[in-house]
């Protein structure tokens, strides 16, 4: 968890023009933002572009951040999420043609699912170590509607609590919980269907 005081001081120093403080902020958050972008957008290139855009936006609007109003992490995640929404709108057409069996992404580096699954449907736990299976899960995640995808990413991959997610998504906590449940269940159904097709 972030140390609110340290981050608050970094932000103040950064707004005052301290380049080292800005570097510290980039160092602290680039990994997290990159991961959110990668899991949402699907590709490493898009994730890199989007992460840069997030930091450019942060750099320009850092003086508007109010320490009293929200945690820095929530503010950063909100900026990230808003840019992801824009990105999704722009690349909607491309996404429609996406498939779980599409080209492998950079991080999981998998071959098509149909070449991999031979004998049995892996369970989530048994397959935790498999790079190919992670790639399949990553691709299935891209098939979820953006509302459900962002909810499960923030909860299950970023470990944010329901209240923080509700702030970022600007919806009630009940809606957040419902989207998380639906997202998880939908993902499981997609993966079940995928493995059943292959077998």
């Amino acid at each position, binding site marked *: 968890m972030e140390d609110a005081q340290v981050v608050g001081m970094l932000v103040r120093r950064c707004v005052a023009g301290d380049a*080292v403080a800005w570097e510290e902020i980039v160092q602290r958050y680039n990994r997290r933002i990159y991961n959110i972008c990668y899991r949402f957008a699907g590709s490493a290139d898009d994730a890199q572009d989007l992460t840069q855009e997030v930091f450019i936006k942060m750099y320009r609007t850092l003086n508007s951040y109010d320490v009293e109003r929200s945690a820095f992490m929530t503010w950063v995640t909100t900026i990230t999420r808003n840019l992801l929404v824009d990105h999704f709108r722009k690349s909607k057409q491309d996404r429609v043609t996406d498939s779980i069996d599409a080209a492998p992404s950079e991080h999981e580096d998998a071959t098509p699912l149909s070449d991999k699954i031979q004998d049995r449907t892996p369970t*989530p736990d048994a397959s935790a170590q498999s790079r190919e299976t992670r790639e399949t899960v990553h691709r299935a995640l891209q098939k979820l509607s953006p509302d459900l995808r962002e909810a499960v990413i923030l909860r299950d991959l970023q470990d944010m609590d329901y209240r923080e997610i509700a702030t970022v998504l600007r919806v009630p906590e009940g809606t957040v919980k419902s989207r998380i449940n639906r997202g998880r269940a939908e993902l*499981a159904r997609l993966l079940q269907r995928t493995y059943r097709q292959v077998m």
Partner: protein
Amino acid sequence: MAGESKNGMQCLEFEALLNEALDESLKGQKLENFQTHAWTCAVCGPLLAEADAGRRWLKSLAEVEPPINLMDNILVATSGLHTSRRHATTGAPLSDSWFERAREWASGLVNPVFAVARQPRFAMSFGMAFFSLSIGLSMTGVKASDLRHADLRPSAIKRAYYESTGRVVKYYENIRFVYQIESRMREFKRATTPAEPAPEQNQQQNEQQNRERKNNNTSGQPEQPRQERNYSQGESQPVLAAAPDIPPVAMVTTYRRFV
């Protein structure tokens, strides 16, 4: 589903407790009712199983490593500085650390080269090379101001690469086109004007000048360029008159029109 009640719990209530149950924060009687409902309800049982499976699938996704140049790219795109992390110990100014070290490292490597390069004749060659490079860049549409605001995102770099390649190919095609037109026009002129009157027939004073020039011409070659220039200057068509004098700048105009 919503209104159905099994073992003292409605499906709607079950769904509301689903997150807590998966977070393992559901305790006591609530947990018991929840479990009983899951075993007996044909809708909520599978929902619990799917949500649990989905959650575990997601948890199996490991955090990915950002590209190593990401942080540098971000810093360059925002504050315009590179990272000081690898070199600076505390809050030292950003620009000193990496630049000084890079210069120290590079000096051992390039000093002998610079010693040679400082000699006037090499300096002249370097100057010409730089001049040619800058002319080349400006002719292909690259401006220094464009470079300063260059977009460093990977996808933008890829795009810029393909755009530049396209421009160079178009530029080359345009130059070839201009030269082809020029040579065709020259051939056409030669073919249509076979008997050019000799200058000495009309102008006595020119005859003497020409004789003097021929004496100075040690190459032994016919004075082709002079004939061409004369031919063009006496021509009534403005296009032909301009053709041999087209400087590179005029070709850039042609290229831009095509792009």
